[in-house]
């Protein structure tokens, strides 16, 4: 795999440097640890929103540090959770006396590191809560929902939790709406070509030239099954069936849609998918309030996409439509 990198082992460091150079007005790095934080202070003390995880997912996580979103992120190695110490230092730095909420994804490594950081921060008297995204319908049956991994639906949790904190809600309120975002969000994806970790140079999975992986994870983890490639409409229908059944979403519901490209798949194809989604939602008489299409949570150069639906209530809708201004997520106030 040809990559535009220097040393395969310093990809994350160099990419963070380039990121900081691009958005000096928005973000800065904490000394000694790979943690990025918001530069512009809000005009009032608010709940601090911290996220983080492995790298290779841009715009996640650092692209979402900004007004109405996250206040900081700890940046792990490719596909590998950041150390507890970094999360702890982010927590110390960002707490404004209103407490801190960790919004992250359901992966063993992330959980252990965020929990250790939480323990350390609590020992310093900082109030910390956490909400863990687990939106991937394909990753465990509903009876075992707590074991589901997070994929692109995590973005909806940040949008909601970030807007909530920015609106002045207190820690337990921010936690409450972030949990609502998680409870009401379902995602499922499909992969066609693998990501390649720079340092290993090995593809993350192997598929035949006519195969796709239904339910793939965004580190290239296997999903539910391999299938022969078929039409975009058929694949979309398959994913939508699983998603709609799971919550379940019902006629009359209002939803937001997030169609996430995993890296190499052209935007054009995501719109072909959206065409079918629209049709399906129309048939079910489900109303879409906002549609996000693009690369929101990638997996290096993996090809494929995921569909995320979030069922909205009034407060989720308002928070999702609120203004956001981070380097890689900009939205004018739509409320």
């Amino acid at each position: 795999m040809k990559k535009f990198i220097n040393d395969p082992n310093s990809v994350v460091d160099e990419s963070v440097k380039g990121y900081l150079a691009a958005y000096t007005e928005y973000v800065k790095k904490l000394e000694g640890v790979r943690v990025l934080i918001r530069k512009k202070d809000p005009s009032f003390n608010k709940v601090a929103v911290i996220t983080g995880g492995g790298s290779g997912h841009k715009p996640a996580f650092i692209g979402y540090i900004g007004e109405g979103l996250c206040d900081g992120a700890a940046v792990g190695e490719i596909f590998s959770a950041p150390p507890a110490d970094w999360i702890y230092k982010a927590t110390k730095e960002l707490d404004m006396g209103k407490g801190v909420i960790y919004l992250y994804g359901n992966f063993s490594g992330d959980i252990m590191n965020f929990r250790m950081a939480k323990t350390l921060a609590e020992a310093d008297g900082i109030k910390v809560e956490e909400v863990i995204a687990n939106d991937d319908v394909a990753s465990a049956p509903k009876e075992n929902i707590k074991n589901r991994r997070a994929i692109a639906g995590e973005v909806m949790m940040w949008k909601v939790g970030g807007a909530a904190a920015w609106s002045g809600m207190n820690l337990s309120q921010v936690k409450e709406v972030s949990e609502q975002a998680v409870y009401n969000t379902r995602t499922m994806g499909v992969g066609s070509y693998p990501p390649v970790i720079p340092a290993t140079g090995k593809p993350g999975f192997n598929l035949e030239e006519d195969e796709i992986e239904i339910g793939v994870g965004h580190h290239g983890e296997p999903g539910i099954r391999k299938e022969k490639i078929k039409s975009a409409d058929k694949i979309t229908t398959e994913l939508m069936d699983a998603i709609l059944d799971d919550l379940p979403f019902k006629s009359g519901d209002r939803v937001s849609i997030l169609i996430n490209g995993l890296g190499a798949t052209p935007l054009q194809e995501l719109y072909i998918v959206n065409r079918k989604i629209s049709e399906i939602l129309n048939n079910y008489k489900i109303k879409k309030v906002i549609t996000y299409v693009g690369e929101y949570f990638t997996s290096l150069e993996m090809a494929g996409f995921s569909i995320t639906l979030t069922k909205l209530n009034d407060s989720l809708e308002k928070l999702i439509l609120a203004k956001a201004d981070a380097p890689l997520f900009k939205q004018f106030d739509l409320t």
Partner: protein
Amino acid sequence: MKIDAINFTNIIINIAGTIEDNLDYLTELDTEIGDGDHGINMAKGFKRIKEKLSEADILDIGETLILSGKVLLNEIGGAMGPLYGGGLIKAGVALKGKNTIYKNDIYTLFSSLLESVKSLGGARVGDKTMVDTLEPFVVEYRRQSEGNETVDSFREALAKAKEGMESTRDMISKVGRSSRLLERSKGHIDVGAASSYLILESFYNSLKSIMDQQDN
């Protein structure tokens, strides 16, 4: 037999070498049912440990373990930071102040590591994790070391560790990234179980050559 602080540092340095040599093997295992990064992270972590140990000049084996654990915990992260890192720190606390260790200290080391991994990660034998390597090792080592020499005890325990590692092949994963694969996680050795085995095997090889030197 006894292991002094310099011996011990060499043991760790040898482990670093073993991990480095097995990078592709670990990558392959983690690609099959995981995300492919285990080898890289372990290699990166142990390389950093090697650097730190060569800079420092520690004669306290407990401190050596704590320093190594902190590298994993504070600089590497991932699942291995807390699991191995936390485990090494726990073992280091237990061995703090010792510049020579003996048969029973080795038990203390690995049982502390195992305990830390289990309490932090919540995995049990049969869940298809490193615990499936470490627990049979610790149990057997304790049994063997009641009557036998260090190296012999270690060898027998290592055999159980290997069985344990291999038993993960037929397991359905219950914990961590691969647990979402259910039936599809079968047929592959767990990468954490494999790296734990490599560490133990390397430890054993070092013990043997230390013993050879001490015999001369």
